[in-house]
């Protein structure tokens, strides 16, 4: 036990300290690199973008929670795989347009774009608030990943968690995006190492893949729950597909994904990354199967916290020192996305709330310092979330986050391709979609966790009066409501001749590339 803690603590401190020092060292000696890391001057090339976006999207929480889903319910949890396969071809043509228009007009957040495109500060405010609210629980969940590891190592009390986040806060405050980009490299190498060892070594000790799946099958056959099993049944296939597609559409609406993509050097870097990022999906698919390995190995979660099954599996199967390495990989893996997410949320606050509503004449220096403070506040809020509220509540919030961020799709993603919608229609659609989504989530119960409300994202169609046991992803239905209202609202607004907002963008802005004289570099990181 103690070997584990020592290896974990040493790796964790060395790696986060290294990022901190490296960022400062480059700042002191090498101005060109300062621009590279601060995203001010030169932006990121293919490799760094790959590590940054990958480290950003595939978080510690994913590595802990996805196998926990397979452990608990089986095949339905595997939706994470088609989700991350579908998302890249889906956003391939979308993100390059966002990159171009953002670099021509100096836009940093999705809300900035909506403001420029539809000429509506109100719509931009709604998009900004949606982004902040959806990101906060996501940051909190990174802590759930660290917490699961600490629990398994037998560390009690809140202090270690607070120290971990203090480190995170210190280095994002100091170095903006540079440190996470650097640490992402180490984090991913560690995680690849751990997972490759796990998928070769653990099955060999458990009697092969066949035996692992047989054990999972036997477990699900023995439970009374109708929805579990190693295959889908006729009632949850629609849920599986809509959840995968809905999550795929939501992924690149999150402000932190946008931050990572905008930091890229050009359109070709983004395109190349869209074909290279699925390498992480392979990792995710293999990690998901750890859930079944835990079943075959007879792992029991600590208390009711199923997020501890993967750390418990490592603890049981690996020698102490390697379990320590694995835990460090998860812990460091939590810091990278948490840093990028808090920067993205801080940018939204500074640009779309502070400068728009509180102090329109803010100088660049004021903006930067507000951004730094906001990123601290967001992180402290996330720590409080974990310490004061049941972690299960954060997971529910994250679920809501996916549903609500989808409601920005008509203004952000469709707005990139055309300007048919009227700003009033989009606002009405957002309100309707948000309302419908929250009402649906409220009515979903989860008998397993004894939650009467917000118990999951699978909405039973029988609640709409349909004679079926099929379920569908609530976010998907909410988006449908949003789109219908947005279309009707647009027609109505045009019929009564409501004023159109001015469109600051021109069609050629959406295809501009690096060599275009109108393309400017962006200051994406809040601090420099």
């Amino acid at each position, binding site marked *: 036990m103690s070997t584990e803690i020592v290896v974990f603590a040493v790796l964790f401190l060395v790696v986060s300290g290294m990022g901190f020092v490296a960022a400062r060292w480059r700042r002191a000696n090498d101005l060109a690199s300062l621009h590279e890391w601060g995203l001010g001057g030169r932006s990121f090339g293919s490799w760094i973008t790959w590590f940054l976006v990958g480290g950003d999207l595939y978080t510690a929480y994913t590595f802990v929670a996805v196998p926990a889903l397979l452990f608990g319910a089986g095949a339905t949890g595997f939706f994470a795989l088609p989700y991350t*396969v*579908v998302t890249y071809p889906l956003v391939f043509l979308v993100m390059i347009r966002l990159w171009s228009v953002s670099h021509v007009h100096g836009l940093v957040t999705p809300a900035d774009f909506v403001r420029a495109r539809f000429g509506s500060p109100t719509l931009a405010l709604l998009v900004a608030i949606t982004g902040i609210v959806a990101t906060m629980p996501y940051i909190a969940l990174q802590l759930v990943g660290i917490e699961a590891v600490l629990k398994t190592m037998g560390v009690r009390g809140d202090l270690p968690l607070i120290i971990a986040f203090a480190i995170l806060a210190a280095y994002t405050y100091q170095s903006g995006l540079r440190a996470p980009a650097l640490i992402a490299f180490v984090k991913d190498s560690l995680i690849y190492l751990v997972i490759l060892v796990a998928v070769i070594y653990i099955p060999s000790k458990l009697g*092969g893949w066949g*035996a692992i799946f047989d054990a999972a099958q036997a477990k699900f056959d023995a439970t009374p729950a109708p929805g579990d099993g190693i295959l889908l049944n006729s009632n949850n296939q629609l849920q599986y*597909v809509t959840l995968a597609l809905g999550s795929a559409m939501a992924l690149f609406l999150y402000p932190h994904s946008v931050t990572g993509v905008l930091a890229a050097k050009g359109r070709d870097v983004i395109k190349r990354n869209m074909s290279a990022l699925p390498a992480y*999906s392979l990792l995710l*698919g293999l990690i998901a199967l750890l859930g079944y390995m835990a079943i075959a190995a007879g792992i029991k979660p600590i208390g009711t916290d199923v997020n501890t099954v993967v750390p418990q599996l490592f603890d049981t199967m690996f020698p102490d020192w390697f379990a320590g390495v694995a835990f460090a990989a998860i812990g460091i893996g939590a810091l990278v996305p948490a840093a990028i997410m808090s920067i993205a949320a801080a940018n939204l606050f500074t640009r779309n709330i502070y400068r728009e509503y509180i102090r329109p004449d803010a100088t660049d220096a004021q903006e930067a310092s507000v951004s730094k403070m906001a990123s601290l506040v967001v992180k402290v809020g996330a720590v409080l979330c974990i310490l004061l509220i049941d972690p299960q509540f954060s997971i529910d919030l994250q679920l809501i986050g996916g549903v609500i961020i989808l409601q920005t799709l008509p203004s952000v993603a469709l707005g990139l391709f055309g300007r048919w919608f009227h700003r009033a229609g989009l606002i009405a659609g957002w309100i309707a979609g948000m309302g419908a989504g929250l009402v649906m989530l409220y009515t979903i119960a989860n008998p397993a966790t004894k939650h009467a409300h917000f118990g999951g994202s699978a909405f039973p169609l029988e609640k709409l009066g349909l004679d079926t046991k099929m379920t569908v992803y609530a976010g998907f239905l909410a988006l449908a409501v949003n789109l219908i209202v947005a279309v009707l609202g647009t027609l109505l607004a045009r019929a009564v001749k409501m004023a159109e907002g001015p469109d600051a963008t021109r069609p*050629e802005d959406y295809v501009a590339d690096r060599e275009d004289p109108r393309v400017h570099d962006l200051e994406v990181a809040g601090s420099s």
Partner: protein
Amino acid sequence: MAAPRSDRSPWNWLLLIPIAIPLIPALYNAVEPRLFGIPLFYWLQLAFILLGVATTTVVYRMTRSRR
């Protein structure tokens, strides 16, 4: 001045393949045939990653900007 740039290309239609195929459960919702003891449901969906990488790579190479 050069012709206006555009993102339009017939190659883009290829992107629909890795979007549509993984969303059809009828293709993979079965245990047999197994591969190394892994049920079809799992190994075929993992194989879809290759499909996604292949198509996006082709589209990237055919549509990247010429210098």
